[in-house]
């Protein structure tokens, strides 16, 4: 896909995330909007995962450690044909399979996640199994910044480095806000890049909303032989909706009717603007 086509996707995904959160009257809005560009590139450009090959041993594995941003994942998987999008109308409702955190009952999802600090160790385990089998698949995992306070992540990084897992790609959705407030007030993370390097990762920092940059960086993995690749993706919580951006209250806020309409209009305007740009 061209970057312009991918940009359309991102805007469309954002609209859908808001649509289904609004319908469900629940969901993790800000975090889904901050990671959606990353998921867009992963599922449309990088992962060799489609409904027909989801049981293939050599499929790439994606583990979403920041499970609360599940709306982003549900929307992307529907777009990739894993299930009809209309099923998302049941999001978070009684007896729906589309519960508030990723569940492997949903086609396309590898593992139940959502309790923070579990996804990275799990991904390290998958990557070790891949190395044992000399398999071609890669393991991608998306971490939230708040969950880096969980010590389990650092245990897992030690093991990823110890076992030289260059088939592991760790992406940090670094939107710098968590449920209570800014990371730097809740539990300071910086200096982050040197920390990851000290734990044996090959680190790159990117703008997590620059689709071309995300794509190029993910195509470059592994960054170094024998090391896990770690991408610090600088993002904006609530990205794409003016009043949600960098606002703590939208961690899991549901827009009211007027707010919803404004959000949709803003996203529509950007779609129209994109259409006026002639692809090069």
């Amino acid at each position: 896909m061209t970057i312009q086509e991918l940009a359309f996707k991102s805007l469309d995904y954002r609209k859908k995330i808001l649509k289904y959160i609004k319908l469900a009257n629940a969901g993790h809005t800000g975090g889904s909007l901050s990671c959606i560009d990353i998921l867009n590139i992963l599922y449309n450009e990088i992962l060799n995962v489609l409904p027909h090959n989801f049981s293939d041993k050599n499929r790439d594995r994606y583990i979403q450690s920041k499970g609360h941003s599940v709306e982003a994942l549900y929307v992307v998987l529907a777009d990739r044909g894993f299930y009809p999008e209309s099923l998302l109308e049941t999001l978070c409702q009684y007896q729906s399979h589309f519960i508030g955190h990723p569940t492997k009952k949903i086609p396309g999802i590898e593992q139940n996640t959502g309790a923070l600090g579990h996804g990275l160790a799990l991904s390290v385990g998958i990557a070790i199994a891949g190395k044992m089998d000399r398999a071609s698949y890669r393991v991608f995992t998306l971490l939230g910044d708040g969950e880096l306070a969980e010590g389990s992540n650092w245990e897992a990084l030690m093991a990823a480095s110890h076992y030289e897992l260059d088939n592991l790609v760790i992406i940090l959705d670094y939107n710098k806000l968590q449920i209570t407030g800014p990371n730097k007030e809740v539990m300071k993370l910086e200096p982050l890049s040197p920390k990851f390097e000290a734990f044996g990762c090959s680190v790159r920092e990117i703008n997590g909303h620059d689709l071309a940059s995300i794509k190029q960086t993910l195509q470059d993995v592994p960054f170094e032989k024998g090391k896990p690749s770690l991408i610090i993706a600088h993002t904006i919580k609530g990205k794409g909706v003016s009043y949600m951006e960098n606002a703590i209250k939208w961690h899991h806020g549901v827009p009211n009717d007027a707010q919803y309409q404004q959000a949709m209009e803003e996203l529509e305007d950007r779609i129209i603007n994109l259409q006026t740009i002639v692809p090069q």
Partner: protein
Amino acid sequence: MEKILDLKYTYTEKKDTRSGFGDGLLEAGRNNPNVVGLCADLIGSLKMGAFQKEFPERFFQTGIAEANMIGLAAGMTIGGKIPFTGTFANFSTGRVYDQIRQSIAYSEKNVKICASHAGLTLGEDGATHQILEDVGMMKMLPNMTVIVPCDYNQTKAATLALVDHHGPAYLRFGRPNWPIFTPSDQKFEIGKAIKMIEGKDVSIFATGHLVWEAVVAEAMLREEGISAEVINIHTIKPLDEAAILESVGKTGCAVSAEEHQVNGGLGDSIAQVLVRNMPSPLEYIGVNDSFGESGTPTQLLEKYGLNAENIVKAAKKAISRK
């Protein structure tokens, strides 16, 4: 005392149940190339050295990072492996409960959590390491199978059986040398209790090391004219309810015996079965809401009332309540 008793089972050798695990794991590794071992810096204590030596490419040292070990094991199942994790029972359960809950039990991952040094018989190290709550924590988890074998042979057989059992499992064993009184060629059937001794006055349901104590208690009771039935509940979950009901249906009362807290242990599970189906007197042999302490296994089992003499007393009390 044991020597003058007319025991229904005898032994010529004592060995630790953890060695049954280690030898079982080695054999499992030979039988199935997907079996992998993980250990959090306790290779010697868990007797995993032979597996490590023969299959270095299938063995993963995780360092003293038990939570990470559990997460790695869960991930390895997504890569098609059958991971056996090894550390002490307290670090295998309480320390990593959330990892087990989220990444193994809820996610139905085919991980075998293998736990040594369980209970008081760990001995000298004392209360920090003598977990007495692990069975309770594990049996509460949906999807989890909980196995507590009674001797070296049974632990080895249980380890091998777990390879062919698909799903999360907790295998609990211990440190001390213990009589080997079950056959070396036994077939281990998960969820199927073993009637060790037939009797008619009282049912003794024992698990782990205390199965041997129950065998000794049966001989002591027989000398007093009391006929005890001894049943080895090696699988605490799923519990063999039919075997329990059949036995108590005949004897009318029961004793549970385990190296674990009374709260949340085997006795609790048996009580549920009896209360729902056949309310009957039940006496509990177990640790009564207390932590352990240092001492030899024999000293500690005596102090906390987890030996044959106390099973005899409990059996008489159960009979008197009929």
